[in-house]
């Protein structure tokens, strides 16, 4: 379970996330929905330890991300929104680096790397520098890295952007499998449709505030009743 407790993040001259609380239960795919600039990435960066939290706290399965830093990070698999990973490494070197960092056993590496990268169609490119990869390929190598160490909590920032339909389908299947095993999948998106297809539960964020949290049925109801959400709904569907 992830518990986000009243977190706030202020950048010079701008509050990106204000007094935000969320509880993400085990065994669910949790969608974090909001238009561009809503504060999704900022929240996720605080969850993964990239950004220091100004106020409030976040715990991952009971481990506080700003106190028991390494223990919390060890449980997280993070797919960033930007693919600025170590560009000068080759695909295979990146994966092995990740395996070293997360202490993945030798036997597991070999089978998993070849299995995963073959599935994503990047096996042939493993000996190339990541610099030469397309955006989608970079995304795939990062996702492979996450799957390689198989953490309890997946945190994915707009993971489907830039993936081709086949890989997108595969990733969605993998997310469903992971949640079915009782683990956590938390991902952000600005596309309502994706949430409808995939999520068990959703939180809608706008201008740093959570506007809604609940399951899919509740969300549809709210959209019809709530004036504010209706406007947001238009933004989210048009952006798609």
């Amino acid at each position, binding site marked *: 379970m992830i518990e986000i407790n009243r977190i706030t993040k202020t950048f010079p001259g701008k509050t990106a996330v204000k007094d935000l609380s969320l509880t993400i239960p085990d065994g669910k795919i949790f969608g974090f929905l909001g238009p561009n600039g809503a504060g999704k990435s900022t929240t996720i960066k605080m969850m993964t330890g990239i950004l220091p939290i100004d106020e409030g706290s976040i715990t991952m399965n009971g481990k506080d991300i700003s106190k028991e830093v390494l223990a919390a990070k060890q449980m997280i698999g993070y797919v960033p929104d930007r693919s600025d990973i170590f560009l000068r490494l080759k695909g295979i070197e990146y994966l092995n680096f990740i395996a070293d*960092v997360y202490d993945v056993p030798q036997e597991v590496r070999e089978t998993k790397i070849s299995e995963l990268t073959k599935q994503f169609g990047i*096996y042939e490119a493993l000996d190339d520098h990541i610099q030469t990869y397309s955006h989608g390929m970079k995304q795939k190598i990062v996702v492979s890295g996450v799957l390689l160490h198989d953490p309890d909590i997946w945190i994915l920032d707009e993971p489907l952007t830039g993936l081709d339909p086949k890989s997108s389908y595969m990733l969605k299947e993998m997310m469903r499998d992971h949640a079915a095993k009782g683990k956590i999948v938390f991902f952000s998106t600005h596309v309502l449709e994706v949430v409808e297809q995939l999520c068990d539960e959703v939180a809608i964020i706008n201008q740093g505030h959570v506007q809604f949290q609940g399951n899919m049925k509740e969300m549809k109801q709210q959209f019809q009743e709530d004036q504010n959400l209706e406007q947001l709904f238009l933004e989210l569907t048009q952006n798609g």
Partner: protein
Amino acid sequence: MAKTWLLIKTMVKMQLSTAGKSDLEKAGYGCLVLFAIPLGLLLLSILNSMIDTLYTSLAPTGNENVILGLLFVMMTFIFLFVSLSTVLSSFYFAEDVESFIPLPFQPYQIVMGKAAVPFLSLYGVNTLVLLPSLIIYGIHSASGPVYYIFSLVLWLVAPVVPFVLTAATIMFIMRFANIAKNKDRTKIIMGSLGFAFAIGVNILFRLDSGGTGGGMSEMVLEQNALLGLVTKFFPTAYFSSIALTSPTSIIGSLNFLAMIALSFAGILLFMTIGQQWYFKGVLGLSGGTRSTFKENDLKRRTEKRQVLWSLLLKEWKTIVRTPTFFTQILIQSLFFPVFILILLLLQSSGSLSTMASRINGWDDSTSLLVLFAFTIIGLGVNPASFSSISREGKSWFNNLYLPIPAPLIVTSKLLVSFFLNVLSLLIISIAILFLFEVSLSVWFIWFLASIVASWITSIIGFLLDFHQPKLNWTDEREVFKGRMIGFFALAAEALVFGLLLILLWAVPLFQSLTFASVFMVVYLTICVLLGQWYVGKVTKEKFSTIH
């Protein structure tokens, strides 16, 4: 023409803008200017005394214009050397090339725009050396106003032909040679070329100066023969020198006109070549390599390693595989030791070996002091250390979410820059052991002290970069260019090691080798401990806040 002018203005503005520079850097530039004034005066007095000496010895035989010849030849070399790297980076490696290509400009217009900054930058050294030298010569030869008018014009056109030659050669290579297909490889080859050029010129001059002594006396008798020899391969230097030797005569004026014509021809040639070759060379440059992954490699390449070792490999690969880092860090730090070694090997009776024999006469503590000072200056600032954090650029955030302890990442960075220092140190140590013939105990103490000093240098550079890293770059050169950090590192090192050297020099007790070495050990140990403590402190406080 209006379009070309517009392009030139835009590109100059873009490259010279001070936007995005911190106040600290601006203050650094201010400091630099303050430093430059006494240095400029020093340079002026050196030039003055050199020209004075040469003039008095050459004037009796009427060969004083050899000074002009030497001056112009030397300037040509400097122009060639300086423009080599600036042309390459501006023409081929700057990321903005791609944004100009789709715009409706002729290739020659773009190339003129791209040439502006590298060309203008030649005027820095041109103004610093050529202009005062010509004035000093004018005063010595009691020349009239025509001489000074000619001087001004020749000063103005002097960089043109060398610049065109470099640019044309580079455009030719990039157009026709196969290396142009791979941007990374080209960057490495071209980056190393500058250093090879410097070493090559040095060797040539040394070999050449040995042989020409004999015919000298005959040539002195014949007017302009000596000048002809000096400027043999440099028609522009010949024209310029003759023009200034007798500015009021017809011969002088003709040579002056020839020089002007040659420069104009140079500009036309540059535009023609640019129009023909520039786009063909710059398009299709791409980074990285491609190959197909081999099945049977998988086992070997998924070997389990310690995290620290994994991090070290990552750092090392980043340096070796990024052309800018390869030349700025690896080649740069190996350049000085290799250069020294070559000089020592080539020269058996020169100034360095005189120094060596003098060292043999010194007592042990003095040799230790001199060797250590020499090493500190030689190793200088280590670019690997002050680019520790900045090298990561936009990928830095990966260090924040991966479950790696921050001190481990810091250690890997310190170790890489330390390793590079040790590499240079090994080369220097060979030179010292075999060529200076110091006693083994001195050598050993020196070696130990230098190793520790390398670690201190790494810490200093690291701390400076950690304090204010430049992560938001789009081109790796920004990590080194326009940052005052190298200067600050030098200042910090001067402080730390200067104090040690002064104490060793001034305190009478340290005349004894034992006391000197004990003091060195204590001083350096304290420095390392302090540095290590401070690194630990800032890592804990600041590591996760760097963005």
